[in-house]
């Protein structure tokens, strides 16, 4: 089935009007030697019932959902209210294009405007764009933006920034002459500020730090911003767990110049890593260097309020190679889901969710650290993730837990070779106390 809406009669009459005998004639502009001349070697067409069966079978080969999981590391399982799935599935949201024609796209445009407002309220920044691809790309765009703003060629990257964001920053900057230098973390799990101070020089355009960082530890953002600014460098704050913004002071309040990150936590399922929602916000004075689309408020000829895509002279379709970014299609529908999610939770709901994450993770850390030989790796305060040091190789312990139906977090050795016995765990409001206790029991058994 190919979803064609023409009858044979239609096709015949249409060819007649065009004045050709066959569709093949319309391909007369292709050299014969290029024509494939055989059927594509892809599986034969499936009917809808067959297709459903085969996808049921594919999905069933994902046994992950049968496990009790404490994996986080940039992807979080939060409760998603029914309004999000229900409203975001409407055809009017799923099937339009980018709102280039504002008169027939006010729905999408007003929602982006609300989304931009929500991101500004949460981050404490002046301006938010309409979305980027994901947290990793947003981090890379943040670094590129900082470089454009002050034309210095070195960027400092916290080693406690999500390793996959760091890799993406490397990819994005590798051909642009930007030097990347990492700043380590201390016993508290947070950025070593003395090392930051020492590495900041007149060649550094900015520092990117994540808070809560990859280990879940809340960074001293005020201090990082202060040190960066004393060296005329920009402070870029990345947020991978957006729910934390419900309780932690906003990075904007501390003077951050750019806030970017991942908003998957706002109404998007883990989905094997995508589609997610990259976000970016900045100070007013940096508006012209902000990448991505923006929606602005205006009036129509009758004086009624309306919304349009605006300031597109920053963008690729106008500025071509001088654009602030090459992004075109972004993650609008994901931003819609985040908007529905945040407006449904509302002020009190988001705060309640944040508080429960904080409390449950604290309970889990305390409970698990009571298991013999297990201790909290870092002394810093954390939000809903924490690192446990185990008495032996972390992967071996995780494998043993897996045999009991539990995924006890992420072994950190692959990302930090020195953390051989360490595991990163995430606990959200979606983990009942019983599940946490179950993990503690299993861990005790495994380590016995």
């Amino acid at each position, binding site marked *: 089935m190919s979803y064609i809406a023409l009858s044979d009669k239609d096709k015949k009459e249409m060819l007649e009007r065009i004045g050709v005998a066959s569709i093949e004639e319309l391909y007369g502009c292709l050299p014969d030697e290029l024509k494939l001349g055989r059927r594509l070697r892809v599986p034969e067409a499936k009917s809808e019932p067959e297709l459903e069966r085969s996808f049921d079978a594919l999905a069933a080969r994902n046994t992950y959902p049968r496990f009790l999981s404490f994996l986080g590391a940039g992807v979080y399982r939060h409760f998603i209210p029914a309004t999000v799935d229900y409203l975001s599935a409407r055809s009017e949201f799923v099937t339009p294009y980018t709102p280039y024609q504002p008169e027939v796209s006010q729905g999408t445009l007003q929602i982006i405007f609300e989304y931009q407002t929500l991101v500004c309220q949460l981050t404490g920044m002046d301006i938010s764009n309409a979305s980027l691809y994901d947290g990793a790309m947003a981090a890379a765009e943040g670094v590129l933006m900082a470089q454009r703003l002050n034309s210095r060629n070195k960027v400092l990257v916290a080693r406690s920034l999500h390793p*996959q964001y760091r890799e*993406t920053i490397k990819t994005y900057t590798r051909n642009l002459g930007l030097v990347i230098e990492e700043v380590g973390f201390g016993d508290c799990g947070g950025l070593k500020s003395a090392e930051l101070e020492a590495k900041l020089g007149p060649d550094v355009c900015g520092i990117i730090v994540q808070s809560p960082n990859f280990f879940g530890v809340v960074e001293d953002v005020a201090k990082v911003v202060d040190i960066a600014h004393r060296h005329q460098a920009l402070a870029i704050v990345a947020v991978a767990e957006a729910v934390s913004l419900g309780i932690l002071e906003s990075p904007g309040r501390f003077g951050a110049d750019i806030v970017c990150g991942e908003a998957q936590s706002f109404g998007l399922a883990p989905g094997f*890593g995508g589609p997610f929602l990259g976000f970016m916000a900045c100070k007013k004075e940096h508006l012209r260097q902000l990448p991505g689309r923006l929606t602005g408020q205006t009036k129509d000829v009758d004086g009624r309020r309306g919304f*349009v895509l605006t300031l597109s002279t920053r963008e690729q379709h106008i500025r071509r190679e001088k654009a602030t970014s090459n992004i075109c299609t972004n993650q609008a529908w994901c931003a819609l889901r985040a908007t529905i999610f945040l407006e449904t939770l509302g002020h009190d709901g988001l705060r309640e969710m944040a508080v429960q994450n904080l409390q449950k993770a604290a309970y889990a850390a305390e409970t698990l650290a009571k298991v013999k030989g297990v201790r909290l790796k870092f002394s810093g305060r954390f939000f809903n993730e924490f690192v446990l040091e185990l008495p032996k190789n972390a992967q071996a312990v995780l494998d043993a837990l897996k045999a009991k139906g539990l995924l006890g977090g992420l072994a950190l050795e692959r990302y930090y070779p020195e953390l051989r016995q360490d595991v990163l765990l995430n606990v959200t409001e979606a983990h009942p106390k019983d599940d946490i206790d179950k993990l503690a029991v299993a861990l005790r058994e495994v380590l016995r």
Partner: protein
Amino acid sequence: MIREPLIFEISDKGKRAFALPKLDVPEKKDLLAGLAVRSEIRDFPQASEVEIVRHFTRLSQQNYCVDLGFYPLGSCTMKYNPKINEKVAVHPGFIQSHPLAPEDLVQGNLEVLKLVEDALSEIAGMDAFTLQPSAGAQGELTGMMVIRACLEDRGDPRKFVLIPDSAHGTNPSSAHLCGYTVQEVRSNENGTVDLEDLSKRMTGDVAALMVTNPNTLGVFEYDIKKIADIVHAKGGFLYMDGANMNALTGICRPGDMGVDVIHINLHKTFSTPHGGGGPGSGPVGVKKVLEPYLPVPRVVRKGSGFGLEFDRPKSIGRVHSFYGNFLVIVKALAYIQTLGPDGLKEIAEIAVLNANYIRRSLDKDYHLKYTTPTLHECVFSDKFQKDAHGVTNLDIAKRLIDYGVHPPTMSFPLIVHGALMIEPTETESRRDLDFFIEAMTKIAQEAKDDPAVLKAAPHHSYVRRLDETAAARNPVLKWENPGS
């Protein structure tokens, strides 16, 4: 129609649409002692569930969409988005799985990735695909980085990238992000790449030519093999922007034309919905020699199943947090499997039939700058209307809204002044095609009889023509509480 305020304007303290179960662990004080916590999120909305549902339902009704009608945006391939694709993609096995899960627990996902990579390789005639890029532009960047990495390996990344003057703006922007200086190649009188200009510019300093085929006029680059030879003779690579692949599936394959790297937009050719501006997906296909440079991780066969391979020393690295817009990729697989080999060819054929039907039906009323045969889209201009009546492509586009049709792409490609770029896709019925043709014909008549009606259009939309200049001059990019 009810005018819908911003959520912030109907928000009131204490209203709720959501509650969590009671906290089931002992509450501790001072967990964040010594850190700055916020006591409130200032002006954050508070509304009831019914208000939220009506808010979004009303807003949805202000959108035009493919499920409502004809959406002929040229280059965007606004085809029908099959509903079964949406259904299979929300299977809990897919949406609940964590990207860092042990490989043996996500075999279904890895198989999806492999199946799509294999199908795209066959359809495009390439040796390997990566599905990591989130959209076409990120695909372009990835593809160009792969080329650059390979050239670096050979000792010289080179300085320039050639791009035809008819190209999408993302092409030069992506090449620039990859550290290249862009040089434009002229189009000839047919609207295709001027071979003489290309030969002159194609030196040993040029890394690649980025070509769109069929190009943005809908014209197939008849000399694509010669173009490839010119580029290859100087040691460069041929990059193809596959945005218009919908004209070619099952008919011919970029890999057979000498293309070394291609990106394909799953949200165009492979029917995944555009979602009001994404998420898309921009897989990149390469020839064997470039495979070692593709982003990590790669999906590989491991025993009887699948695994992820990270140890690829020549790889450009990672361009996504994980493996791309996975759930979009699931939908594309459903589409490919529904169509099969014959369906994939049929979509291209009917897309070309529909576009030529529109072109033939409107070529008396609207000016065609290039009369070269076209495939899946056609580009008219406002020349007739503008010269005689002062009516521009913007006026024509806005008037179409009154007729209940989404306007075509405007003012692109840049080589056609006052362009109206029309791509019907294969999924339109004769009735909808004729409805559009009739509307365009009436508008051409109105331009003669009553141009003022067009200049003031649209008349029947939720809002009328909006002041875009004022929006850019005095940017209001968020709601501010008038009381604070």
